[in-house]
């Protein structure tokens, strides 16, 4: 009976399918990196920048179709340029941040429109707009795995280097400045990491899932966890769970209808993430009775640097 149940959940061929393997590996990596970086993005209130970078990096993707260079180069390069632009016109100040992001996004999308038009005209790849926006996890080539792993390690390494100052400056800029943190530098590194993580996930799993995995797991984790490290860990876990769950459901959906038209994986992943966010609101509301302390204050007050000051 258990066997029959398992077989109905894991449809035949799930574990032997090459595209499913690749999707599970690359989707998993993107989910973990996005979860870790995204927790900071949510804490800092930079969801818009995170989403904008994924849209703009898609313009880089269409440029790479056109120039015949590696898509990874196009995505990461364009995200880097956009992050630089946002930094220059003042995305770090809370006032005007929204506008600065919007202007860069508008210009980037305009560029994307032109590049996709050229793609369609000169290379007759009319589907580029859809591939870039919606992505297709089951169509990733397994040869990209090493590159994706390398870039992910770079992104995670950068977060690790600025971990403490970044948390401090995310909770309170003033506090960080008092402690001698170079806030501006820390924030620039965070924005660069964000660009890298987002470009990576936009390329592999599409712009929609990139934003979903960046914001959803981090926001859900921050509602239940009361320490930053625990929130980051939960975000990575939620991201991984929803991605793999989505892949499983998408694979299963192929058998749901008689005409064998599978539902898209991005639909399932996004739905699972949204459910996780709604559930986290309930759980978080209940657990605040027991642990009323706001996030991160606990961690900071128990840190060794605090004792040297007091």
């Amino acid at each position, binding site marked *: 009976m258990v066997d029959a149940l398992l077989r109905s959940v894991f449809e035949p061929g799930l574990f032997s399918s090459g595209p499913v393997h690749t999707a599970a590996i690359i989707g998993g990596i993107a989910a973990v990196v996005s979860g870790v970086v995204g927790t900071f993005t949510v804490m800092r209130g930079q969801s818009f920048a995170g989403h904008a970078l994924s849209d703009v990096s898609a313009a880089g993707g269409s440029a790479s179709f056109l120039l015949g260079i590696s898509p990874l180069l196009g995505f990461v390069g364009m995200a880097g340029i956009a992050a630089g632009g946002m930094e220059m016109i003042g995305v770090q100040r809370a006032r005007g941040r929204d506008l600065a*992001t919007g202007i860069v996004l*508008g210009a980037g999308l*305009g560029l994307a*429109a032109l590049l996709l*038009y050229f793609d369609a005209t000169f290379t007759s790849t009319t589907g580029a707009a859809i591939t870039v926006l*919606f992505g297709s996890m089951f169509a990733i080539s397994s040869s990209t795995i090493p590159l994706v792993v390398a870039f992910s390690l770079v992104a995670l390494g950068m977060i690790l280097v600025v971990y403490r100052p970044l948390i401090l400056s995310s909770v309170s800029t003033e506090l960080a400045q008092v402690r001698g943190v170079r806030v501006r530098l820390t924030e620039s590194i965070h924005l660069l990491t964000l660009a890298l993580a987002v470009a990576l996930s936009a390329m592999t799993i599409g712009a929609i899932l990139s934003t979903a995995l960046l914001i959803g797991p981090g926001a859900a984790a921050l509602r239940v966890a009361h320490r930053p490290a625990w929130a980051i860990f939960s975000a990575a876990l939620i991201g991984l769970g929803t991605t793999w769950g989505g892949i499983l459901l998408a694979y299963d959906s192929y058998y749901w209808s008689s005409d064998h038209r599978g539902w898209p994986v*991005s639909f399932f992943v996004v739905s699972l993430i949204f459910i996780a*966010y709604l559930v986290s609101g309930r759980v978080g509301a209940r657990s605040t009775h027991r642990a009323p302390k706001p996030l991160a204050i606990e961690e900071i007050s128990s840190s060794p640097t605090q004792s040297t000051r007091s």
Partner: protein
Amino acid sequence: MFSGFMANTWIVATVVAAVAGVVGFFVVIRGSSFAAHALPLGAFPGAAAASLLGVNAIFGLVVFSAVGAIGIGQLSKRGKRDVATALILVVLLGLGALFLSMTSEYAPEIYSLLFGEVLGIAKDEVGPIIGLGVVAVLAIGLLYRPLMLSSISPELGEVQGISTSKMELCFLLVVALVTAMALPVVGALLVFSLMVGPPAAARAFTNRPQVAIVLSAAVALVTVWASIAISYESNWPVGFFVGGFGAGSYFIGRGWTWLSRAYATRADTAVELEHAA
């Protein structure tokens, strides 16, 4: 360029630009650029849903953008506003991915929904678009005082009995209306460029709200007219020009602010020097 089949385009584009310019002023002073981007992008699957059900695309766009506005309003009551916006956006796009997998929509059609199509305005779309535009401007006119107050100082608004969250919802619904009317012309990705670039520039030139609103609409009009004209001549997508001119007008505004500030300080120093002498 001004031949018969382009007449609809010019009429609709003019209405869209003027309305986007007016509503955009509030988008900028409220810091709602993300919502102004998320609603059009999230509404675009509505067109796919409409074609799946065989109804008019505008109807699908209105429903989806309204659902988006209500969703953002509800979710941000208990949570961060930017997180709520991002999540509603991806949920709507996830639904879009599902609908698109069910329809056999051509890729070029999706492209023109995303990036705009100058020549794609059918005669039966002109009426509804103008109607939606009139409703949006009327709504802004009716809400003008409370909306302005609650945008500039939510606390002061609350004291006078204006609910911030209700105002936010009303405003999001107006943005949703503009979205539905503007999307077929300038495309899902560029509607928001029109709602952000021109008003940002207008704000740099004047501090008076009424003047800024008129100026914003004027800049939006010039942006759209120029974009369509150049797009018609060059055959390049209209979205590219709208996005480029939007960013360009923002930077002109920034430059103006910088210049007038530099001039003001120089004038001040001149006066001080005179006094010293």
